[in-house]
């Protein structure tokens, strides 16, 4: 028997473990365990009182058995007894048992809590730490109820030992995560923040995890931590490698603490205080510089620790997204790692660059590495690295390199690992659509996709190509020709047959002039694939055939014969049989006119979010879709297909069906919310359910400039409604969060941030309940005070868990300066007098813009009234014009505003002029209003 343990060995335990290891079979092991269980049971039940040592030994054996994967249904009581032993070693085993076999056994939990209570008040630091560990390990609600108020006291008490402080901080963090409602901050907030200044590095390291978590939830209350964190970081970064003694890890000063400080800073925007910000930028520069220095040790631990700090610093730089110099430097540094000999670094560099690609400052810099990344995709031995390379190519893709990237991804697909093929297919399909300048390239790409990786082409992908071909008449002929050629291949994928059947059924006539693709040749080609296809494909082909009868009367006899044969008309599949019978009858009874009407070409599909994108989001899990596509969408929308030549706001048209005649009632394109936008590209501007926090969703924002109530946001999961009221410089906003699913949202938190110079003061009355049941709606009230005029809107960040996945969403709250208007009635004469008084050039803001909506008088009036000003009649000599007056009430001052709106119905244009006593207000109102009419 090897390795006699140090401390006090439990010989019996070692013998038992040894026995188990010697068992030749699973059966033998179970037999030995049952024997031991019987033995322990009899000892526990025996008349003789067991001494502490034996009790400890048996409890430890039970623990071992449990950890082997067997159930344990007794011994808990003995373990609880050990807790109150005054022998450390027995107590320790007791706590270990309880921690591992957490079992909300309600009778025992009271006893356990009692023992913990005693140990917490024992003033013996080792006992206190054991007790705190147990609370953190179990972390149950009962424990939170019992100790949540006690632990903060221990944490900040002056006479608490450092080791106990560390345990208390992390124990509190654990309780806060499981039962945030029970952990009340308040009077100890500032003392906890000041733990960042503690002399003991271990205390700071433990406390910062707690502070980071609390800051994420209550950024305002903890914002003093920013300057403390910066100065602590600065001291560490500038220290020599030996200054911090044992907190130096392989010549790197305090890597864990440094990373945690950098992580904490990522909870906040860049520091407003210039000095603090300067110090921080200096730190970041030092970190970037140090990364370039020659290594102080050859050990991998040294480079790992050093680079961990570098990556964390880069994350912070990306988070701020405001220092172009640092961003570009970060990108260059990562560029070096792309070719590093350490696989780990290549992996992380690719991952980190993905986020850099979404910043407008560094997007171009990232793009310069395209060849290296393509090379990584081709040559990396490790599939997880290749996957990151594919992600990065996707993230760095834009109009300039789309063809190259798509081509590379396609060629990689031929040899790609099975595990990532489906995702690659989706990405290629999305990029091809998003950056398609000419649609023949798009069609080629998708057909290639089907050819290369047909099995991984999900329905969404081929539905989409059909939608696009249907909607764009300039590509239909090309598509028909291309699928016809693709179908010539002796073995072609069933997905190809589906696309081919659909497209030839619709547009086969466009290539029928060529004798090589005459109607009969087309039909024979399709029908040669028929017997190898699955039922749904055959059903689709039957529909294509009936379409052929309409398009090419000369094929009628041949096709009717096919429909009439037993294998169709008596097919055992009811769907196929029904189609065959109905189509046969239809073709024989109906006149050509009727046939032509019934089998008319499909109407254009309504535009909506690409179902492919929705699928990718779902596949990667919410939050995992890179920020780029959302932001890219904003950057790009309006370029391609900008005018929306065929894009209709067609939310009410019936959902498209992949089936020609719509016999199947399925609506294959997922029920993503219809975006009322132009063509293809616009789908990306819709921040879906997984909007990362970086992308702010302001879709709803502008709709609320002239109204106070309505739905601000809605996706598949969540609906957010708003009701608000304003009086003078005060406002109150009711937010209603509705869970549209049948599943509970957990850890539901909302935070309101006022970015930049925003002065409108938001006093959040109280946090929302952390759980939102399926189908339930919860309410939150925000009290708003306008201190001075402002332009930015407050941001509402919502986080919750749906299923296992964290959802993170940021919305602009529609609090705009005009909400604080008081209408002012005045006569024509007064109006013009004041108008002249406000004649300095900067007091006036003017915009001429095209009408976005109808120029209906009543609608315009309603909007102006909704704006909050008084609409003045008989002021303007031209009765077509609108004139308004009002005063904006802020706490610090009142701002008088006059407005004139001149419509030109003929040109469908407006001229909007604002004159206000404060120039920033004129400008802001003008911006807001120009998008309303």
């Amino acid at each position: 028997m090897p390795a006699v343990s140090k401390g006090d060995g439990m010989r019996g335990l070692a013998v038992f473990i040894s026995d188990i290891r010697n068992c030749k079979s699973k059966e033998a092991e179970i037999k030995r365990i049952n024997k031991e269980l019987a033995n322990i049971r009899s000892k526990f039940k025996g008349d003789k009182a067991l001494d502490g040592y034996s009790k400890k030994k048996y409890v430890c054996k039970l623990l071992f058995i449990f950890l082997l994967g067997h159930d344990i249904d007794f011994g808990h009581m003995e373990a609880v007894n050990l807790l109150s032993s005054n022998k450390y070693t027995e107590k320790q085993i007791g706590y270990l048992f309880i921690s591992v076999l957490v079992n909300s056994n309600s009778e025992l939990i009271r006893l356990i809590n009692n023992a913990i209570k005693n140990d917490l008040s024992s003033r013996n630091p080792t006992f206190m730490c054991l007790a705190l560990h147990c609370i953190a390990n179990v972390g149950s609600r009962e424990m939170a109820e019992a100790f949540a108020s006690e632990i903060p006291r221990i944490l900040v008490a002056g006479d608490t030992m450092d080791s106990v402080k560390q345990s208390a901080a992390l124990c509190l963090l654990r309780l806060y995560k499981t039962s945030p409602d029970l952990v009340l901050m308040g009077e100890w907030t500032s003392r906890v923040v000041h733990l960042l200044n503690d002399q003991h590095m271990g205390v700071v390291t433990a406390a910062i995890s707690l502070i980071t978590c609390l800051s994420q939830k209550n950024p305002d209350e903890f914002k003093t931590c920013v300057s403390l964190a910066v100065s602590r970081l600065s001291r560490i970064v500038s220290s020599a490698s030996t200054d911090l003694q044992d907190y130096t890890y392989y010549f790197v000063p305090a890597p864990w603490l440094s990373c945690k400080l950098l992580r904490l800073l990522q909870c906040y925007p860049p520091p407003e205080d210039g000095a603090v910000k300067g110090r921080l930028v200096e730190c970041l520069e030092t970190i970037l510089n140090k990364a370039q220095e020659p290594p102080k040790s050859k050990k991998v631990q040294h480079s790992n620790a050093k680079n961990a700090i570098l990556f964390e610093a880069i994350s912070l730089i990306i988070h701020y997204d405001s220092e172009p110099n640092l961003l570009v430097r970060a990108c260059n540094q990562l560029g070096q790692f792309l070719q590093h000999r350490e696989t780990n670094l290549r992996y992380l560099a690719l991952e980190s660059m993905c986020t850099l690609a979404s910043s407008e400052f560094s997007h171009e810099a990232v793009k310069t590495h395209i060849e290296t990344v393509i090379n990584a995709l081709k040559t990396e031995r490790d599939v997880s690295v290749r996957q990151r390379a594919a992600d990065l190519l996707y993230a760095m893709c834009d109009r300039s390199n789309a063809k190259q990237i798509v081509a590379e991804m396609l060629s990689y697909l031929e040899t790609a690992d099975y595990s990532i093929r489906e995702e690659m297919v989706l990405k290629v399909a999305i990029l091809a659509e998003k950056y398609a300048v000419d649609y023949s390239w798009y069609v080629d790409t998708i057909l290639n996709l089907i050819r290369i990786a047909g099995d991984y082409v999900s329905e969404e992908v081929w539905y989409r190509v059909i939608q696009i071909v249907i909607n764009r008449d300039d590509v239909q002929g090309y598509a028909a020709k291309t699928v016809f050629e693709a179908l010539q291949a002796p073995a072609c994928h069933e997905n190809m047959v589906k696309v081919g059947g659909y497209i030839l059924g619709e547009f086969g006539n466009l290539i029928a002039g060529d004798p090589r693709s005459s109607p009969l040749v087309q039909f024979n080609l399709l029908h040669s694939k028929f017997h190898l296809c699955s039922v749904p494909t055959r059903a689709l082909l039957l529909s294509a055939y009936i379409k052929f009868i309409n398009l090419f009367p000369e094929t009628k006899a041949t096709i009717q014969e096919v429909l009439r044969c037993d294998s169709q008309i008596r097919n055992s599949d009811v769907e196929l049989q029904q189609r065959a019978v109905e189509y046969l009858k239809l073709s024989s009874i109906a006149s050509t006119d009727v046939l032509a009407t019934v089998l008319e070409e499909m109407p254009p599909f309504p535009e909506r979010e690409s179902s492919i994108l929705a699928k990718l989001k779902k596949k990667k899990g919410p939050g995992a879709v890179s920020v780029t596509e959302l932001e890219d969408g904003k950057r790009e929308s309006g370029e391609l297909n900008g005018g929306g030549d065929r894009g209709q706001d067609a939310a009410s048209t019936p959902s498209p069906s992949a089936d020609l005649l719509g016999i199947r009632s399925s609506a294959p394109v997922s029920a993503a919310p219809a975006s009322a936008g132009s063509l293809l590209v616009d789908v990306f501007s819709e921040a879906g359910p997984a909007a990362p926090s970086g992308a702010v969703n302001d879709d709803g924002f502008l709709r609320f400039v002239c109204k106070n109530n309505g739905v601000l946001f809605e996706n598949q999961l969540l609906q957010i409604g708003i009701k608000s009221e304003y009086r003078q410089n005060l406002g109150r906003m009711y937010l209603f969060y509705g869970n549209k699913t049948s599943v509970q949202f957990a850890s539901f938190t909302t935070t309101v941030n006022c970015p930049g110079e925003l002065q409108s003061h938001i006093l959040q009355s109280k946090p929302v309940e952390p759980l939102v049941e399926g189908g339930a709606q919860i309410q939150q009230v925000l009290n708003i005070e306008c201190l001075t005029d402002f332009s930015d809107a407050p941001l509402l960040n919502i986080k919750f868990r749906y299923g296992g996945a964290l959802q993170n969403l940021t919305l602009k709250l529609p609090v705009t300066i005009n909400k604080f208007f008081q209408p002012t009635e005045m006569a024509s004469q007064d109006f013009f007098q004041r108008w002249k008084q406000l004649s300095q050039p900067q007091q006036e803001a003017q915009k001429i813009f095209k009408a976005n909506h109808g120029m209906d008088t009543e609608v315009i009036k309603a909007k102006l009234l909704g704006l909050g000003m008084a609409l003045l009649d008989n002021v303007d000599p031209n009765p077509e014009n609108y004139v308004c007056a009002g005063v904006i009430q802020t706490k610090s001052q009142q701002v008088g505003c006059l407005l004139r709106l001149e419509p030109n119905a003929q040109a469908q244009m407006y001229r909007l002029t604002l004159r206000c006593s404060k120039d920033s207000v004129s400008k802001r109102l003008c911006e807001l209003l120009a998008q309303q009419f």
Partner: protein
Amino acid sequence: MMRFMLLFSRQGRLRLQKWFTAISEREKKKIIREMTTMVLARPPRTCNFLRWKDLKIVYKRYASLYFCLGVEDEENELLALEIIHRYVELLDKYFGNVCELDIIFNFEKAYFILDEFLMGGEIQETSKQIVNRAIESSDMLQEDDHSEWYDVELFG
């Protein structure tokens, strides 16, 4: 934060499991199975990181043992790797050239050492000296078994 730490052998036998959040035994078994298959299937000299559901999996092999850490998305992979390394160093210091058998026969010690180092899925103390001292002093308590001793020393 960290969600779990697993130690298993090349044959996929679990040697230590530490869970930092409350999850059901069934779920634990599922994770253990998935981790061992996933990690053991990795060819040598590939990178030490994997994505699994919403977690980052960081693993490293030391002799016959695999150390596997499941961390949340915001954690730094390289430091997670060093957490593993520091734990190995602590085990090594305590057992002196630690081997798999030490952990099998003294599993409770392996847990105690881990508890001094990590807590609630966060790092509690990074200093090797301090952790070692804490473990040594608790061993002294085991040998003497005079728990009052510490009390006297500190507050007497």
